[in-house]
């Protein structure tokens, strides 16, 4: 009798969260590497894995391979992984500090601010030579500034004498996001015939991304790492509510500002090179949470991995569907994909999002 009762009560011992975490990270990392390899293999010219490795190692069988792999596909794959990781971990920070699992850079206006900055820079430099080739470094800089400014604006607008609070931050964010995207559309008017490149910014796209863009993104990511490390424990406490945070010796308002800063830097950085990718910032942390729970120390790492995987996979699909499958051996077709990757994340994101919300209620 007691034995039965004990058996009923104890049930199957669940895998300890730590073990689960290690396994999740390992599996996700392997998956990411495999996907990136696949990414580099697939294109107008299909490369076998050994060719890829040779090309990466600098001993290509044909110089063309080296260019295709090292100069075109590899930077784009790295970019997808890095930007995906940044967007998704930004979402993890936002969801914890705003205490809402639906918060994301694109729902509170950070993404829209960065996109506005980018489009503004594009429009202002139209006259000049080479403005539209995407190497124009002014554009990511302006995007970064736009994202940071949008974050500041949302925070400032929701600040009252007693400080800010998550509810007000979100409501303000949603409205600011709407206003900023209207402002962006306003700029589209002035873009004349260059709508194409602007659309790529609106929806988010990785086409024509090269090492130069990566050179911009990496310093931002490097800057974000100490920020993230410093704000993870703080965010962990803050997600238990302001009262508990104060009880545990945290200045809640300062802490919130700190965690928000991390989130804004991460998101603005990512958007400044890949544009306004939808859904990733919401989807990534969600999937990660189902794997490793809400402790930010684990959640952020896992979100980053999941985000990287999603964006690499989505861009791979975007590229693959744009190839037209015409056996053209020219590299030019590699550079542009007609379907922006953001459309793919949205397509994948939609059913997932619906499923997620249903599962919660």
């Amino acid at each position: 009798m007691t034995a039965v009762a004990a058996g009923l009560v104890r049930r199957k011992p669940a895998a300890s969260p730590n073990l689960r975490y290690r396994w999740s990270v390992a599996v996700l990392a392997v998956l990411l590497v495999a996907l990136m390899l696949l990414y580099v293999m697939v294109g107008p010219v299909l490369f076998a894995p050994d060719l890829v490795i040779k090309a990466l190692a600098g001993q290509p069988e044909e110089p063309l391979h080296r260019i295709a792999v090292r100069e075109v596909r590899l930077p784009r794959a790295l970019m997808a992984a890095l930007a995906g990781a940044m967007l998704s971990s930004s979402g993890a920070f936002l969801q914890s500090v705003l205490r809402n699992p639906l918060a994301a850079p694109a729902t509170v206006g950070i993404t829209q601010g960065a996109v506005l900055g980018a489009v503004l820079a594009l429009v202002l430099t139209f006259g000049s030579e080479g403005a539209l080739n995407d190497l124009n470094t002014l554009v990511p800089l302006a995007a970064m500034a736009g994202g940071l400014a949008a974050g500041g604006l949302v925070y400032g607008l929701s600040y009252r004498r007693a400080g800010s609070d998550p509810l007000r931050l979100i409501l303000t964010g949603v409205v600011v996001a709407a206003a900023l995207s209207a402002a962006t559309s306003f700029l589209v008017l002035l873009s004349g015939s260059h709508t194409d490149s602007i659309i790529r910014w609106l929806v988010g796209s990785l086409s024509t991304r090269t090492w130069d863009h990566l050179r911009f993104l990496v310093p931002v990511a490097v800057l974000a790492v100490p920020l993230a490390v410093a704000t993870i424990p703080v965010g962990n406490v803050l997600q238990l509510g302001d009262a508990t945070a104060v009880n545990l010796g945290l200045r809640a308002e300062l802490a919130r500002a700190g965690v928000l800063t991390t989130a804004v830097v991460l998101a603005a950085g990512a958007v400044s090179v890949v544009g306004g990718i939808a859904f990733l910032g919401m989807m990534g942390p969600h999937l990660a949470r189902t794997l490793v729970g809400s402790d930010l120390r684990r959640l952020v790492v896992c979100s980053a991995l999941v985000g990287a995987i999603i964006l690499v996979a989505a861009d791979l699909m975007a590229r693959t569907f744009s190839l037209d499958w015409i056996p053209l051996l020219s590299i030019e077709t590699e550079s542009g994909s007609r379907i922006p990757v953001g459309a793919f994340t949205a397509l994948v994101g939609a059913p997932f999002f619906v499923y997620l919300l249903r599962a919660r209620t």
Partner: protein
Amino acid sequence: MTGTEPTVGHPSIWVDRVAAGYRGHEVSRRLSLSIERGSRTALVGPNGSGKSTILKTLARLIKPLSGSVYLNGKDIGRLPTREVARRMAILPQVHEVPPELTVLELVSQGRFPHVGALRMLRHTDDEAVQEAIRLTRLEHLMDRPVDTLSGGEHQRAWMALALAQQTDLLLLDEPTTFLDVGHQLDLLGLVSRLNRDHRVTVVMVLHDLNHAARFADRMIAVLEGDVVADGPPTEVLTPGLLRECFGVEASVMEDPQTGAPMCIPHTTIPSDR
């Protein structure tokens, strides 16, 4: 309990002519109060009388509208908030938890004031967390997400968080809500033991007057923000007070086992308030 050397001569908490409340809504006009080191104080009073407000003011969760609160003789508003957190823990009346956060992860956050933002948890921290979980009898629920717990288990998890803070002052706002009668006694017994063995000073809001009388050595009755009675349970728990404060007719007798006063409410008085 931790390395905080008691400042001799000062009461643990001293409230000096404090107006407590919220912007545009003053709850307590001019409150003065002193909580002695090693005491067990129970705050009682009807709903909305201001008990939580007073407790939150003691815990610097809300700023006094005027006046000051002193912790070990120092103005709490000027102490670094993390230092306060190493000396005082509060269990608030309402909690927020993110989904999927496990009990262990929640309780570990109690070490935050000791660990700091940048350092990792150490072995001693781990022990404090395990101890808190053991004391609240949550071992078997350690890896369960907090938002899937029952009301009582939930409450105990938060209690464990406060215990993991290892402070020598505990402020508890209705620690026994949601608990069944066994766990209520368990928790109040635990509080008494902490008080007896580790000289932890306890201030708690309790709705059960009999529990208050039995587990506290001092009762403070609050009505509309003001202290209307203050003293040992035998002096405070009287039919007169029950009538004035709660509007009930009740008889008070002595608990044959513990010697504490005990009340049995009979009827409410039709109120003209």
